[in-house]
């Protein structure tokens, strides 16, 4: 059984993002970029399913600039078998929007014929939390978002997914093929070790011009401005627990 896993390259989670003075977006030049943390969880899950014998092949797909190959190499180093980059020069945090990404991924699903598509629940740049659901809707496949546990049945015809929902944990049962988006609790991704990164250089990575797939990628949302949030006035210190409790009771009025 084959699975596709989608991977996005974003500004590293530990970097402080800077909004450009002209309000045209966030500064991307000379900024450390990494695989989106939720995509790492999706890759890890795919690799574990391969190790367990549930999957026979794991194919990583990314949409973005040439440099997205770095994230695909990381996926390969973690254990994916091969990778495909759908190359575009659209800015992936603003211009290449989830609707277009889902359309591109749909093309890959049609080509690769996977039984499962794994994605992170959201990318930490545009925070849309949409691509997996859009893709499932376009494919007419069942979807399980915010997955924290997957249990495939023995015949590999279906999967029970535990999901993180507002009320707690929900379990749903899906038939394959399906789309799953991964939440934080699903697993702890492994590190891509240097030897594995070296080995990953030998794994196949195909680069396809995204425009050649005949998909409408034009942005539906026009960014009028990107601004910094209002600054928080912090920095006051108190000298003791008593003073802290007094302030919380009588000034902030958040304690009885």
């Amino acid at each position, binding site marked *: 059984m084959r699975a596709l896993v989608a991977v996005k390259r974003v500004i590293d989670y530990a970097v*402080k993002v800077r*909004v450009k003075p002209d309000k045209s977006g966030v500064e991307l030049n000379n900024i450390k970029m990494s695989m989106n943390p939720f995509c790492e969880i999706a890759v890890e899950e795919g690799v574990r399913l391969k190790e367990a014998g549930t999957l026979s092949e794991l194919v990583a797909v990314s949409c973005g600039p040439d440099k997205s190959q770095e994230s695909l190499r990381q996926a390969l180093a973690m254990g994916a078998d091969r990778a495909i980059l759908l190359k575009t020069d659209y800015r992936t945090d603003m211009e290449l929007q989830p609707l277009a990404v889902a359309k591109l991924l749909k093309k890959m699903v049609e080509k690769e014929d996977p039984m499962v598509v794994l994605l992170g629940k959201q990318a930490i740049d545009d925070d849309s939390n949409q691509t997996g659901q859009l893709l499932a809707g376009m494919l007419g496949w069942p979807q399980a978002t915010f997955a924290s546990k997957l249990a495939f049945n023995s015949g590999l015809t279906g999967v029970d997914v535990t999901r993180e929902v507002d009320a707690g944990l*929900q379990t749903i049962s899906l038939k394959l093929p399906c789309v799953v988006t991964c939440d934080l609790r699903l697993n702890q991704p492994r590190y891509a070790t240097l030897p594995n990164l070296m080995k990953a250089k030998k794994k196949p990575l195909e680069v396809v011009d995204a425009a050649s797939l005949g998909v409408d990628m034009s942005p539906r*949302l026009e960014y009028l401005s990107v601004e910094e949030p209002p600054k928080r006035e912090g920095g006051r210190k108190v000298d003791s627990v008593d003073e802290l409790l007094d302030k919380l009771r009588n000034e902030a009025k958040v304690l009885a």
Partner: protein
Amino acid sequence: FSTLVVAEHTQKGLHPATLSAINAAKKLQDDICVLVAGSGATEAAQEAAKLQGVSKVLHVDAPAYQYPVADQMANLLVAMQQKSSFASIMGPVSSLLKDVFPRLAGALDVQPLTDVMDIKSSDTFVRPTYAGNAIATVRSKDPVKVFTVRPTSFPTDGLEGGSAPVEPVTPPEGQPMVEFVKEEHAHDDKPQLATAKTVVSGGRGLRSKEGFDTVLDPLCQKLNAAMGASRAAVDAGFVPNDMQVGQTGKVVAPDLYLAVGISGAIQHLAGMKDSKTIVAINKDGEAPIFQVADYGLVADLFEAVPEMTDKVAQ
């Protein structure tokens, strides 16, 4: 033109977030229809009908809507859209609508919007990106706007005195593709991290799992607070992943947020900086957490937190 607001409810009543969504919908200046889809949910539909500004309540009452799943809700909304051609379909951010709306948008070939915090006009919206570190104003070119709104950005009051008709809606035929199995309310007795009024989070300064259990937990119990953690504490194995507050964990905005032994990494700040009042307790007076804290206490947490627990009223 009209707006369809998809209500979040508990069958017996509307979730307060629905009231925020209706106040947000008013900014679009179109007729407001409210969909209450549930099993029974008559009380919730009646409550929606009494909200000022609502022109019609559309009520789906079917056993299958006790625990609606994404494809079922998306199919219902597609059918309603085909019949009524709403200019906007919106609702509060919730695990259900985050699941449903993009699927609906895919069917309508529309780019949806998540987490809208302000509505400038019928096609221009403000939403946070980069965990709230960059606020984007975007114009949608799609003929139908599909979006969720952030409940904390819109008021819940000022909606008394309406009287709208309640119209039954027959949902489309067909079985959902996904079968609901069960729902577990993990810690029903404890406040949930995402919705708690008070959150107490611990960092690597707690030193161990025992630190969380013996120092932080008693304070959480006294304050009726949800317990959170920094990514550093999670990575160190002190607490499970689902307690993580931050850009890659849960984004919270309680009335009171206490950061204990947390230095204040950027990705942690992104997950809690919208809290009303922030308190930081840390040994290191130079820790970045103090820059966003309304009240900072430079102290050994192993002394300060038990003292605080003793002195806080039950």
